[in-house]
């Protein structure tokens, strides 16, 4: 059977499953639409959170991101998992106890201020909309790559699918489809990784294989995999996998990702769906279990796939002869067709030499073998995950599973973000500000219409991505770290924090982060409008714009405390509210509301 046909069958089956769940998990009330009726088992919620969290970028690109840079990009692994420790201890249990539906709702009630609530809505919408653009384009690209349709058609299919289950089921439908999507994506990610780890090291667990010796019959048998990889990289002039860069910048970037993770609204609202406060604590742990299954495997996938591709290019090591054009394996030629791999025999010797010119080792190699430049002209980092099943000689259905997994990762994250956006509109804008007398039925309808509107907007932005699409991750994490996280945390941990302080703090975090990003990346990310060139020499204290989140958070905390100490303490009933969110007893009562 042709691979594309097989892909369509497997992807089609997974979609049929999602639609089945959507019909089964229809939402009948706003409590079901916003918070799945607060009846989700903590393990199930952990699984849904993992799918909500892990995007197409985690699934397809992260292994390559780590493999091409090595140790320094461990920041992504630690940053995108360590945030759950903050979430579990500083936010999730108390916000669940509060027992409402949205993040701006907590901010509005805790700070007894519609202004604070609206600032939170603005922050939420900026964060979630920029984040969802990447998911929609990711889904479109995944469709076009696996099913051989064009990107636009792919995007329409993706948004149509999300439309069905998100509009019908709200949080309830999204939760159970996310569980199914998690299962698809983790199986798809793990199977090829296990086989590659077995082939290279004899260890079936990729995370352990990464630190094992190479098995018999492979190049470098008996030496540790990482030593073999580092040696080959050094011979060809590349950075070694295990060496790093400026440790203080690594630490700052890790902190930015961690605080940002804990402040992302679409992740926080997942913890509103569990029945009890103690369940929220457990659920954060389970979420990290399911995330770790992929994150512990990802560096191994990246390192092993990189090693496989280099030994394919240099079957006899860097001292031997490079691979002849006619000896390139079948999978290599298949991926050349897609444009993710490309070769050009620059020196006309019938062989393909992959190395890095302009480095000492690279130039020495070029002089010794008479090379005219790197001949592996295109080497897209996504290939490390996408081509894995073929490199490991796995059957076609595993390749099809990777297709279904990539789509599951993109759709599950997009749906979670869309829910965060639409609930902020229907609950925080329509219900609380524009039309407080709206009926339960009316609000449910408004929620569905907002969801539909959010999907249309996301699709439009996915088709016409603004110039800043590439910057979305830095923007979303930096803003979440600088605006929502500090305000939520102070709302729980400081009884003295008042409306003026919180609002001023949020604005300080939001505006300083935007200003710093715009200074180097252009006003509203329009290319050419940046005031300073985006190079390290121009950074204040050497801090790149992508690393600004923690600075924005510190400004938020500082301004909030200063303003709050100069203005009146919050009223008694607010101080009582803070006390009540701190203790678990009584969370069931909130359920009844």
């Amino acid at each position: 059977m042709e691979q594309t046909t097989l892909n369509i069958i497997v992807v089609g089956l997974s979609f049929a499953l999602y639609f089945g769940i959507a019909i089964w998990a229809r939402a009948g009330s706003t409590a079901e639409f916003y918070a799945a009726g607060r009846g989700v088992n903590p393990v199930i919620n952990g699984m849904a959170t993992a799918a909500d969290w892990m995007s197409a970028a985690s699934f397809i690109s992260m292994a390559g991101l780590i493999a091409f840079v090595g140790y320094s990009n461990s920041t992504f692994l630690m940053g995108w998992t360590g945030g759950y420790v903050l979430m579990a201890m500083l936010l999730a249990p108390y916000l669940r106890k509060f027992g409402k539906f949205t993040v701006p709702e907590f901010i509005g009630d805790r700070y007894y201020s519609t202004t604070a609530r609206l600032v939170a809505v603005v922050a939420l919408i900026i964060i979630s909309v920029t984040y969802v653009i990447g998911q929609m384009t990711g889904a479109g690209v995944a469709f076009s790559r696996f099913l051989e349709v064009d990107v636009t058609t792919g995007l329409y299919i993706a948004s149509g699918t999300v439309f069905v289950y998100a509009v019908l089921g709200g949080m309830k439908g999204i939760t159970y489809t996310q569980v199914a999507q998690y299962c698809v994506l983790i199986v798809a990610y793990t199977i090829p990784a296990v086989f590659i780890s077995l082939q290279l090291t004899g260890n079936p667990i990729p995370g352990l294989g990464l630190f094992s010796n190479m098995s018999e019959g492979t190049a470098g048998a008996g030496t540790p995999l990482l030593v073999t990889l580092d040696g080959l990289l050094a011979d060809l002039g590349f950075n070694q996998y295990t060496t790093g860069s400026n440790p203080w910048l690594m630490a700052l970037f890790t902190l930015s990702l961690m605080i940002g993770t804990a402040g992302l609204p679409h992740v926080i609202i997942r913890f509103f769906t569990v029945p009890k406060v103690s369940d929220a604590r457990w659920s954060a742990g389970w979420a990290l279990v399911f995330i770790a299954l992929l994150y512990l495997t990802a560096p191994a996938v990246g390192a092993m796939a990189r090693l496989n591709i280099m030994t394919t290019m240099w079957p006899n090591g860097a001292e031997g002869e490079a691979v002849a054009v006619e000896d390139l394996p079948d999978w290599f030629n298949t991926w050349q067709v897609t444009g993710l791999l490309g070769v050009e025999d620059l020196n006309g010797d019938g062989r393909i030499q992959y190395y890095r010119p302009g480095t000492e080792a690279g130039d020495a190699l070029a002089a010794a073998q008479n090379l005219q430049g790197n001949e592996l002209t295109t080497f897209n980092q996504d290939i490390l995950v996408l081509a894995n099943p073929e490199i490991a000689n796995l059957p076609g259905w595993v390749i099809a599973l990777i297709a279904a997994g990539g789509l599951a990762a993109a759709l599950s994250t997009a749906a979670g973000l869309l829910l965060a956006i639409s609930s902020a509109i229907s609950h925080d804008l329509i219900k609380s500000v524009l039309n407080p007398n709206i009926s339960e039925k009316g609000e449910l309808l408004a929620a569905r219409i907002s969801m539909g509107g959010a999907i249309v907007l996301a699709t439009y932005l996915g088709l016409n991505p603004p110039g800043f699409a590439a910057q979305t991750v830095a923007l979303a994490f930096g803003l979440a770290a600088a605006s929502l996280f500090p305000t939520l945390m102070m709302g729980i941990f400081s009884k003295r924090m008042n409306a003026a302080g919180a609002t001023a703090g949020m604005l300080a975090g939001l505006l300083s982060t935007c200003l710093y990003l715009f200074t180097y990346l252009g006003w509203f990310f329009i290319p050419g409008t940046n005031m300073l060139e985006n190079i390290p020499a121009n950074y204040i204290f050497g801090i790149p714009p992508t690393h600004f989140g923690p600075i924005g958070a510190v400004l938020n905390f500082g301004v909030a405390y200063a303003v709050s100490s100069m203005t009146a303490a919050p009223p008694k009933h607010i101080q009582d509210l803070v006390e009540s969110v701190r203790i678990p007893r009584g969370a069931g009562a909130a359920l009844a509301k």
Partner: protein
Amino acid sequence: MSEKTNEYWAANKRLIAVCLVIWALCSYGFAILLRPMLSGIAVGGTDLGFWFAQQGSILVFLVLIFFYAIRMNAIDKKFGVDEE
């Protein structure tokens, strides 16, 4: 505000502080800033700091969250603020 809930909140904050010290030590410490000090300890062809950066810190985060959940459930009961 009762004495009891005050003490409960103080106990919670102490536990969080302990957990976050370990959280920071393993990720920002062992995996990044203190890595040169740990370079003598070899793990699978590289050093302990590298292992913490790509595997160890994630495992420590997992243990911390479950430890916190278990300890807090006990503290909830001790202070009589658990959910019935």
